């Protein structure tokens, strides 16, 4: 196909909205507009509201909460001859969505728990030693031939410039193949400083791949639950819900409404202006904010979503999220705070 104009027909609206269909959706949209104040994004949620919300969510059973979520989310109206899903923006990043994800993902995990070598491998790895991991993990085993400690990696490392961090020393530690040293490393902040830029890989005279190794170590740290021992490691819980939530519900790691001027004062006044008129700006440059289409911000079709969710379950992502969730839960209990407070703490306090 050639012309851009035809793009809107690329994925034809499944069925033209019938009368009652649209009525129903309108009501739902109204409902959402009338949602109580505490039904909002974390950053303007008072302690009291949080408790209210907690209470409300804990009273819903899995079915209810999941259905409610999708009823709200799939509610659509027509805007400039395209389906538009106004409620998404209200739901993303809310404790409500997080709670729903927890339960839904658990259900999925159980439902598709059938024989799966990938998940099984990670389950076994959990029991095995860290040294075993660095020798066998699909990424790790290609990352370290032999390190001569020349320092070419640290020289250009953006993290080493600003933090007490040094890829060379990490590679040396791994090379030691000493269980205790590795465990200490995985429990420390060190591995979490890496920017994943790959400068180290490009420069290594021995063709090692420090940043690949660090990715692998981070995975291990989470699988073993060591990440909760370090401040920056705990942040992974926020990551799991931010990126994980976006992937799970919108099939993209960054949802175009995530970056709000409220939370990004450093982005300056022009960004503020843009944030106010975001939808308008988007549509005028031909993007599709929360609506049918193929370009930026488009709503991902349920069928597509269903496919990738299966893939992520199959690929062990759900298992890993489960582990992160579990570790977080225990840590939160230890600190005597609710999971939402924990989420706020790790994502905003460090």
């Amino acid at each position, binding site marked *: 196909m050639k012309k851009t104009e035809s793009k809107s027909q690329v994925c034809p609206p499944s069925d033209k909205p019938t009368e009652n269909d649209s009525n129903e959706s309108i009501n739902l949209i109204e409902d959402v507009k009338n949602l109580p104040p505490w039904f909002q994004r974390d950053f303007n949620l008072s302690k009291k509201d949080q408790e209210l919300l907690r209470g409300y969510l804990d009273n819903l059973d899995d079915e209810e909460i999941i259905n409610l979520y999708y009823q709200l989310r799939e509610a659509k109206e027509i805007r400039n001859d395209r389906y538009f899903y106004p409620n998404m923006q209200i739901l993303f990043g809310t404790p409500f969505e997080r709670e729903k994800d927890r339960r839904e993902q658990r259900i999925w995990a159980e439902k598709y728990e059938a024989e799966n070598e990938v998940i099984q491998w990670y389950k076994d790895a959990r029991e095995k030693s860290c040294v075993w991991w660095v020798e066998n993990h699909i990424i790790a085993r290609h990352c370290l031939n032999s390190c001569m400690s020349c320092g070419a990696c640290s020289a250009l490392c953006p993290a080493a410039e600003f933090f007490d961090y040094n890829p060379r020393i990490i590679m040396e530690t791994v090379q030691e193949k000493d269980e205790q040293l590795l465990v200490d490393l995985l429990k420390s902040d060190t591995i979490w400083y890496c920017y994943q*830029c790959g400068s180290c890989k490009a420069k290594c005279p021995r063709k090692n791949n420090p940043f690949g190794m660090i990715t692998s170590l981070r995975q291990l740290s989470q699988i073993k639950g060591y990440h909760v021992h370090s401040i*920056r490691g705990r942040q992974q819980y926020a990551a799991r819900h931010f990126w994980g939530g*976006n*992937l799970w519900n919108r099939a993209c790691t960054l949802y175009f409404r995530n970056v709000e001027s409220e939370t990004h004062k450093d*982005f*300056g006044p022009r960004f503020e202006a843009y944030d106010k008129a975001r939808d308008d700006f988007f549509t005028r440059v031909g993007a599709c904010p929360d609506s049918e289409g193929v370009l*930026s911000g488009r709503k991902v079709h349920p069928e597509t979503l269903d*496919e990738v969710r299966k893939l992520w379950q199959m690929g062990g992502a759900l298992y890993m*999220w489960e582990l992160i969730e579990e570790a977080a839960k225990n840590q939160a209990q230890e600190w005597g705070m609710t999971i939402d407070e924990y989420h706020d703490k790790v994502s905003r306090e460090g």
Partner: protein
Amino acid sequence: MNLPMDVFNHEQRESIWKRYVKEIPDNNYFLTLSCILGALYPGSESMVPKVYDLLGLDWNTNPSARSGWTCCSGIAYHGDIMPIEATLLTVARLWSIAQELGLDSVTMSCVTSFGIHCECKDLYEQEPGLKDKVDRLLRDSCGRKFEIPKYINHISDIYYHYRQELKNNHMKFQLLEEKTGRPLRVVDHVGCHYSKLFPEEHSLGGTDYCEVLSGMAQAWGGSSIDYPERRHCCGMGFRQCMISPNRGGTMSSVLKKMRSMAPFEPDLIVTNCPGCEVFLDKEQWAIYEVTGEKYFIPVITYQELAGLLLGWDPYETVGIQFHTVPVEPLLDKIGIPYDANSPWVNCSVPR
């Protein structure tokens, strides 16, 4: 003092980057877009299909509701919440969609995606048997099968490939200062995952003298400049930029780059990586507020650069209003007309 332009020898530089060239197909592209770019500079993405159509190229993205393209999950992988297998599967699915459409060349607008696609390809080469395993898993989970695509190209590669044609047949402007005719000084910032992960196989010009952007800039009339921090990370760093307690690192990295390039008096910065685009652009404001150092060097993507030179509407099509650092001064330099008091620019930034 010597002119900044004289501190290096262009011929030699050419001979070095020419060691790293890759095959870029002429037509039939499968298009996958980016999460970050789409979220903050939707204009850049909407322009890609326009350019493809302008060049009369055959391309396609998602054929049906079921086969919609999704993100490559690269950020999730580098943000360490996803095992490599899940990412392999996600990418395999995208590849299988491409094959569904009979396209063997995957092009993406995101450098992280590019990196991930290349990493997958590389992994399949390194790991005998992995292909079959992933194939099986893919079939079990959503009944698809896939082949490793012949070509993996970043959209900037395609732009580079057609840079002359764009200039000769379509562009209304050049990267020259309207008044003096001086070539504009262009700083190119190539995404790390484009130039550093697989310099030999996949990056045009290698790590040290990456050509993909400076080539465009030079072809379109500008002059590319080199500066000490040129090849360095913008500090986006996935978890570093996403989690506010880590943001200091990102800002510091940008500051370091800015301080390093400022003496070369660049007129604009061109990027091909969404993450870099965001932070080089946005953090300049933060740096101004925090340190009082005012750089305000316009940062635009290569798509936007092309769009502007093609004479497309700066606001309606290109979307320069999405930028924190005003791009208008650059338009003035080149002499691209725009409506100064259009409703878009409804806020003032110290110029």
